[in-house]
């Protein structure tokens, strides 16, 4: 899909993140850069650091797996559904976004 047509990037992204946060059941959003360091988060510090470190590894592993099988392929997103909630990870070249949601809440 083509990128959306509103061109103040910063505001646009902020707005999108706000909308996500306001959706039903969303517990937190974390933006992590390519080195695994959290850039922005709506959770507390300790959880943020924990999530970002662990999920970074998971994403790297998943991506490496996919690309080993077919180098032209790439990971679009990863959803980990657990008993209590769902962690959605959308990786990008330089950043990835983690959203934790409890869909039944």
């Amino acid at each position, binding site marked *: 899909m083509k990128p959306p047509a509103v061109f103040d990037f910063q505001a646009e992204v902020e707005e999108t993140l706000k909308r996500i946060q306001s959706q039903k059941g969303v517990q937190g959003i974390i933006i992590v850069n390519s080195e695994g360091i959290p850039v922005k988060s709506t959770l507390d510090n300790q959880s943020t650091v924990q999530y970002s470190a662990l999920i970074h590894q998971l994403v790297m592993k998943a991506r490496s797996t996919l690309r080993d099988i077919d180098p032209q392929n790439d990971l679009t997103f990863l959803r980990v559904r657990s008993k209590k909630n769902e962690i959605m990870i959308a990786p990008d070249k330089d950043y990835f976004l983690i959203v934790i*949601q409890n869909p039944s809440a």
Partner: protein
Amino acid sequence: MASRRMSTIHKLPGQKLSRSIKDDDDAWDGTDGLDDSFHSKSAADHHHHHHCHHHHHQLDLSEAELKEEVTRVLNANNPHAPKNLVRYSFKERFYKPVTAVDHLAVHFALDGNLLHKDSDEARRLSIFQLPTGLVPVETKVEDHAETPTTPVEDGAESEETGDEDKPHRTSSKRRKREAKITNQFNFSERAGQTRNNPSRERSCQTEPPPRITFSGTANQWEIYDAYFQKLQKQDKIEKKKKTTPEKKENFEVRKKSLLDTGNEEFAKVGRVAVIVERIVIQNTMDDIAQDFKYFEDASDEFRDQEGTLLPLWTFQYEKARHLSVTALCWNNKYQDLFAVGLGSYDFGKQEGGMLLFFSLKNSAFPEYIYSTASGILCLDIHPQLSYLVAVGFYDGCVAVYNLKEETVHPVYKSTASTGKHTDPVWQVRWQNDDMDNNHMFCSVSSDGRVVAWTLVKNELMSSDIIRLSVKGAPSDGSDGSQLTVISRGTSLDFHKQIDYLFLVGTEEGKIYKCSKTYSSQFLETYDAHRMPVDTVKWNHFHPKIFISCSSDWNVKIWDHTVNTPMFTFDLGAPIGDVCWAPYSSTIFAAVTIDRKVHVFDLSINKFEGICHQIVVAKKTRLTHIEFNPIHPIIIVGDDRGTVTSLKLSPNLRKKPKSKKGQELPKGSEAEVLKMDRLLSLLREPELD
């Protein structure tokens, strides 16, 4: 001192003997003395003094002390050898007394001249006595080595020794004479050694080179990435060679990048955020998504032939709440994307408009948002180039938006000078590219013109296709002249297969069949309705059938060769819009102002619809309806700026059943056949 004293004692040997006898008659030790004690010496002196009687420096000893026995031992120890040598032991880390002291004293050494005849030396010397012919090579070399070192000894050969440059001559001369034996004993080698330069070690140490540990992995995809990047670089270089960059462009690009550097991170996150937003929404609206995909209303089997509509997502945008949905269009390429044009039908209240694009994947927020000054009344997405959108406005302008461009403004807009309409534009439709491969579209407006617009480079060029002028009835006025009345066009549709054929619906309720080639005459006129014709649409499959609807509560189906409608349906309320289904030639749907959606299937029921359902809340009117090209859903727009999506139940999607043993013809052919059968049924009674 002691030795001197001892020597004095030596000089007087007799005295010694006498002394010892005198001292001790019983024991004669004969201790002589190299290690005379002071005591004994003093005793001798004492004796002396006995003879002399007067000596001042004599030790006074008592009788008992005089009689004391002093033991003297004679041994072969070297008196000069140290008695208490101490050496530092590195092993035990302290000074240890050396117990074994060497007592060997060399009194005399003399070097002798005699050689044992069997010893090596003697043998070597004897070789020199041999005749010249048998002189072995080594000795010659030795000779050589030795001759220059004996300049003093051999005065006779001094000339030759200096002659080192001609070794052969010297050697030959050597041979004639007897081989000289170097004197081993008093042979003194006079060697001169130049002063050796003291060797100094000079080293310098550089700083250790900085080290970093580098590690990498070689995976399939890393290799692929590397190649890909290289390819991209090559492409870039090629492109740079081909295109000459415009300075202006560069400046703009730079400007943008300046803005971006602050927001770079967020810009990149933007793309990802969009995806995540969709995921999150999918989660919250999971049941709707499931319904959309899988739900099939089982109760349809019991409902005879009627069907229902299942509401799915509703699409809203807050800023558009006060506007009505005036146009809907699905995107052909991305079938989950649709465009919504918003404006107002109310003449008095024109508040600007919006163009929104929604995706089924994200019902909370539009994908693209464009704000316009004037209300939008119609829009059309190009069937092949799905990023081009043509829009008609209330103020008579038309514009083309390019979704790929990152601007909020249309790429083309008609102005008064380029021939914009003077009245609201009610319908736009894309056409095939013209002969110059320029894109073009047509528009119809209340000013009675059907205009074709061509996208030439940077502007829109217009050309009238036809003027909807009708020769009116002769007036009752005095002149008796005929008036040409301009009909106001309200809808437009082009034939799916025949390019030049199109239909125009007017405000007077007439439908004109026109051709692009005839600009002044209509091919046919149909007296369709008593009120403005809101929509005309050709059937997707059958080439002859079209449908029209109007605010006079009627929906009519026509065969364009016949002047009267094939079917007429009265829906009991003013109709907003009507639309054929893309999967069947006999199914169509209509929306009315009383919030109902009506679905008809002519092959099932020719007189009544198979579904009439209220889909929106009270006090909202439905304005438009569109079928999705592939999914079994319809979208319905209302006057509150909301678009509701509904799923069609199975009864509404019936396809013709094949009789046993008969081959099923292809989709479109079957549809055409179906329609033909219908029409033939209709016509037979007519013929009769």
